[in-house]
C-alpha cells in the first residue's frame, strides 16, 4: 500500500491535466466520468490505505517521489508523510470530494464550461492532498498556494459578472497575506533548523527552544497568520462570505469541508511549536472564540442561504481553533471531520434548493419546501441538527461537546472560553433553525422547476448518514466511553488531561450544552413559526436595525480594511501612475536644451561678435597668465 501513496494526489492531477489539455474536445459524458472517477479512485485507494492503516497501526507511511532540489544542504523533496492526522484529512478530502464531484456532474450539467469546472475541481483535490500529505513545509506551501489558486479560479468561475471576479481576487489576496506570514515563518524555521522537513523540526524544536522562548512564539504566530488567512478566522475572515459567489459544489468542497480547514491542519501538524509557545496557543484559542461569536452573530442576520452557511463555517472553524488553542488536539480534528460531513451536506442541500429555484439564494423568497422536496428537507434537517449539535442523536453534539468541555476543563482552558463556546452554541442552533424554518416551513413563495434527481440525492443521503453516526466513534467516558478516534490520534497528537476537579460533574456541563442547543431551537421556533410578529416588533427599533446592519455587514471589517488599506494603496498607485522619478531625467534634458538656446545666442553670425569673442578669449588667457 505504502508505495501507492503517490497515486492519491497524482490521480486528480492527472484528471485535471487531461481535462485541461483536451477538455473542449471531450463529450460532457466523458468529462463527467473523467472528473469524478479520478477523485473516486483516489478515495478508494485512501479507504484501502486507511483500512490497512487501522489494522497494522504503523507510525506513518512515507514515500519520497523525487528530490525537489538541493541547494547547499536545503533539500526539500516531493515526498509524502501520511500518519493518522493526515489520514483523516485525506479521507475527508477524497471521500467527501468524490461525493461532491458526483453531485456536481448533475449540478453543473447545463453549464458551458463543464470541463473547466472539473479540471479546477480535480486540480484542487490534488493540491489539497499535497497539502495534507506533504512531509516538508515547502511542499505543504505548494499545496497551500495551489488550493488558493483553485479557490480563486472556482470563485471566479462565472467570471462574466465582475463582482465574482473581484470576490475571487479578494479571496486569493487575503489568503496570500496569511501565506506571506507563513513563508516568513518557514524562513525562520529554516534558519533555526537548516531544514523544512516537518518531522525533523518537530523532533528538534524542543531541544532547540525552551518553552515560551521568543523565537518559538514568533514562529508560532507567523504560522497562525497563515492559518487564519486560509481558515477565514479573525482578522482575515472577510473573504469567505464573498467566496460564496462560486458554484455551490465549490462552496461545499472548498469553502466548507476541506480548504478552509487547512489552517486547522497546519496548527495541528506543527503542534509542537505551539506547545512551545503557550502565548501563541492562547491567542489561537482567543481567535477561535472571538471568531465563532462574531461569525455567529453575523449568520443570524443573513438572508442569503449560502452566506448563512458561510458564516456558520467560519464560526465552526472558530470552534476547531478554540479546541486547538486549549490543547484538545484530537477534539479539534474530530470536529473538523464531523463538520466536514454535515457542512458539505448542508451546502449540497442548499445547492439542490438553489438549483430547484433556478439560482434563487434569498431565503425570504423560499419557504414551504418541506413537502415539495422531502429528501432534501430531511437530509437538510439532519445536517442542521448536527450543526446545532442537538443532543445524543447527532454527531455534531459529540464533537462540539468535547470541545466545550475541554475549553473549560482543559489545561489552559478557562471559564471565558467556555462561555464564549456556550453562547456560540446557542446562537448556532438559533440561526441554523431560523434557516430551516424560513426555508422549509411557511407558505411557499416560488414554484420549483425540476425536483432533484438521483445523482443529487444519493450524496445527500450518504452524508446525512455520516453526520448522524459519525459521532459514535468518539463518545464521552461517562457515556459509552468510545475513544476510537482519539486512540487513532494518540500517536500523532498528545492527549489532553481533563481538570480532575471538574471531571466529577462533567455530566452537568453536557446537560447545559444540550439545553443550550435545544433552547436555541426553541427560540428560533418562537420567532419564526410561533409568533413572527414578535420578531418584527423587535426588529423595528432603530437600535436593532443598526445592529442588524452592522452584523449583516460582518461587523464592518470590509469597510475598515477598505478604508485602511485598499483605498490608500490604490490612491498612491494612481497618484504615481506617471512615475515621478522619470520627471527628474526629463528635467535634465530640458536643462540641456536651455543651455543650447543660451549658447546659440552667441552664434549670431555677426563678424564683429566673433572678433569680440576672440578678444575676450585673449583677455581671459592673458589674465590667467598674469594672475597665476
Amino acid at each position, binding site marked *: 500500500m505504502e508505495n501507492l501513496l503517490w497515486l492519491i494526489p497524482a490521480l486528480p492531477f492527472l484528471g485535471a491535466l487531461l481535462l485541461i489539455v483536451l477538455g473542449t474536445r471531450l463529450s460532457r459524458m466523458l468529462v463527467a466520468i473523467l472528473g469524478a472517477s479520478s477523485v473516486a479512485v483516489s478515495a478508494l485507494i485512501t479507504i484501502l490505505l486507511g483500512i490497512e492503516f487501522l489494522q497494522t497501526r504503523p507510525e506513518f507511511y512515507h514515500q519520497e517521489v523525487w528530490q525537489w532540489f538541493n541547494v547547499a544542504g536545503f533539500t526539500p523533496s516531493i515526498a509524502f508523510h501520511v500518519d493518522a492526522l493526515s489520514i483523516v484529512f485525506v479521507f475527508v478530502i477524497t471521500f467527501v470530494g468524490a461525493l461532491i464531484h458526483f453531485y456536481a456532474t448533475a449540478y453543473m450539467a447545463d453549464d458551458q464550461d463543464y470541463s473547466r469546472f472539473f479540471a479546477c475541481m480535480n486540480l484542487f483535490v490534488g493540491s489539497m492532498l499535497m497539502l495534507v500529505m506533504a512531509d516538508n513545509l515547502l511542499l505543504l506551501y505548494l499545496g497551500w498556494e495551489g488550493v488558493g489558486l483553485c479557490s480563486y479560479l472556482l470563485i471566479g468561475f462565472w467570471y462574466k459578472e465582475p463582482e465574482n471576479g473581484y470576490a475571487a481576487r479578494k479571496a486569493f489576496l487575503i489568503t496570500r497575506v496569511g501565506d506571506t506570514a507563513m513563508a516568513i515563518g518557514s524562513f525562520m524555521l529554516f534558519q533555526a533548523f537548516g531544514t523544512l522537513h516537518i518531522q525533523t523540526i518537530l523532533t528538534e524544536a524542543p531541544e532547540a527552544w525552551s518553552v515560551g522562548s521568543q523565537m518559538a512564539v514568533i514562529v508560532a504566530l507567523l504560522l497562525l497568520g497563515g492559518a487564519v488567512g486560509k481558515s477565514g478566522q479573525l482578522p482575515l475572515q472577510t473573504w469567505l462570505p464573498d467566496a460564496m459567489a462560486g458554484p455551490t459544489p465549490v462552496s461545499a468542497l472548498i469553502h466548507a469541508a476541506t480548504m478552509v480547514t487547512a489552517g486547522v491542519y497546519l496548527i495541528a501538524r506543527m503542534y509542537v511549536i505551539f506547545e512551545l509557545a503557550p502565548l501563541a496557543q492562547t491567542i489561537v484559542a482567543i481567535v477561535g472564540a472571538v471568531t465563532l461569536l462574531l461569525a455567529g452573530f453575523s449568520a443570524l442576520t443573513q438572508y442569503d442561504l449560502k452566506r448563512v452557511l458561510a458564516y456558520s463555517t467560519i464560526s465552526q472553524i472558530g470552534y476547531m481553533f478554540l479546541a486547538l488553542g486549549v490543547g484538545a488536539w484530537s477534539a479539534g480534528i474530530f470536529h473538523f471531520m464531523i463538520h466536514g460531513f454535515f457542512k458539505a451536506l448542508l451546502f449540497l442541500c442548499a445547492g439542490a434548493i438553489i438549483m430547484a429555484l433556478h439560482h434563487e439564494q434569498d431565503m425570504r423568497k423560499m419557504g414551504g419546501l418541506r413537502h415539495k422536496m422531502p429528501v432534501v428537507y430531511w437530509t437538510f434537517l439532519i445536517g442542521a441538527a448536527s450543526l446545532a449539535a442537538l443532543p445524543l442523536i447527532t454527531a455534531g453534539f459529540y464533537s462540539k461537546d468535547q470541545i466545550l468541555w475541554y475549553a473549560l476543563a482543559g489545561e489552559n482552558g478557562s471559564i471565558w472560553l467556555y462561555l464564549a463556546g456556550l453562547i456560540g452554541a446557542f446562537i448556532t442552533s438559533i440561526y441554523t433553525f431560523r434557516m430551516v424554518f424560513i426555508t422549509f416551513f411557511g407558505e411557499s413563495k416560488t414554484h420549483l422547476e425540476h425536483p432533484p434527481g438521483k445523482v443529487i440525492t444519493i450524496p445527500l443521503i450518504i452524508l446525512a448518514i455520516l453526520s448522524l453516526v459519525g459521532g459514535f466513534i468518539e463518545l464521552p467516558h461517562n457515556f459509552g466511553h468510545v475513544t476510537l478516534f482519539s486512540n487513532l490520534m494518540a500517536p500523532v497528537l498528545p492527549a489532553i488531561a481533563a481538570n480532575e476537579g471538574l471531571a466529577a460533574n462533567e455530566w452537568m456541563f453536557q446537560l447545559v450544552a444540550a439545553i443550550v442547543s435545544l433552547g436555541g431551537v426553541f427560540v428560533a421556533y418562537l420567532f419564526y413559526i410561533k409568533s413572527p410578529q414578535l420578531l418584527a416588533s423587535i426588529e423595528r427599533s432603530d437600535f436593532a436595525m443598526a445592529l442588524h446592519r452592522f452584523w449583516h455587514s460582518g461587523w464592518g471589517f470590509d469597510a475598515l480594511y477598505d478604508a485602511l488599506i485598499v483605498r490608500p494603496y490604490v490612491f498612491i498607485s494612481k497618484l504615481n501612475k506617471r512615475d515621478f522619478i522619470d520627471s527628474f531625467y526629463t528635467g535634465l534634458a530640458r536643462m540641456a536644451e536651455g543651455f543650447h538656446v543660451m549658447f*546659440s545666442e552667441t*552664434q*549670431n*553670425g*555677426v*563678424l*564683429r561678435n566673433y*572678433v*569680440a569673442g576672440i*578678444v575676450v578669449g585673449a583677455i581671459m588667457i592673458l589674465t590667467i597668465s598674469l594672475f597665476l
Partner: protein
Amino acid sequence: MTPAHMEAALLLAGVLFMLGLISVLIRRNIIFMLISVEIMLNAAGLAFIVAGSKWVQPDGQVMFIFILTMAAAEVSVGLALILQIYHQLKTLDSDAANLMKG
C-alpha cells in the same frame, strides 16, 4: 639702441597692435576692418624688428619681410572677396553679412 629704447619701441608696437585691435572691433565697414588687421600685422612686424635689434640678429627683419608678403597676399584675396560681397549685398557693412547663424 639702449635697452630703455627697446622697451619704448616694444611699447609702441603694442600700442599700434591695440589700435588695430580696437578698430577691428568698432568698425563695421569690411574694408576698414581689413585695414585695421593690416595695422595689427604691421605692429607685429615692428615688434619683430625691435626684438631682432635687441639681440642684434637679422632674423627679426627677415620675419618682417615675410609678414609683408603675407599681408600683401592676404589683402589681394581679401579685396577680391570684398568685391564679391559688394556685388551680392550692395553694401560693405559687415553686420549685413549674417546669413548663417545659430
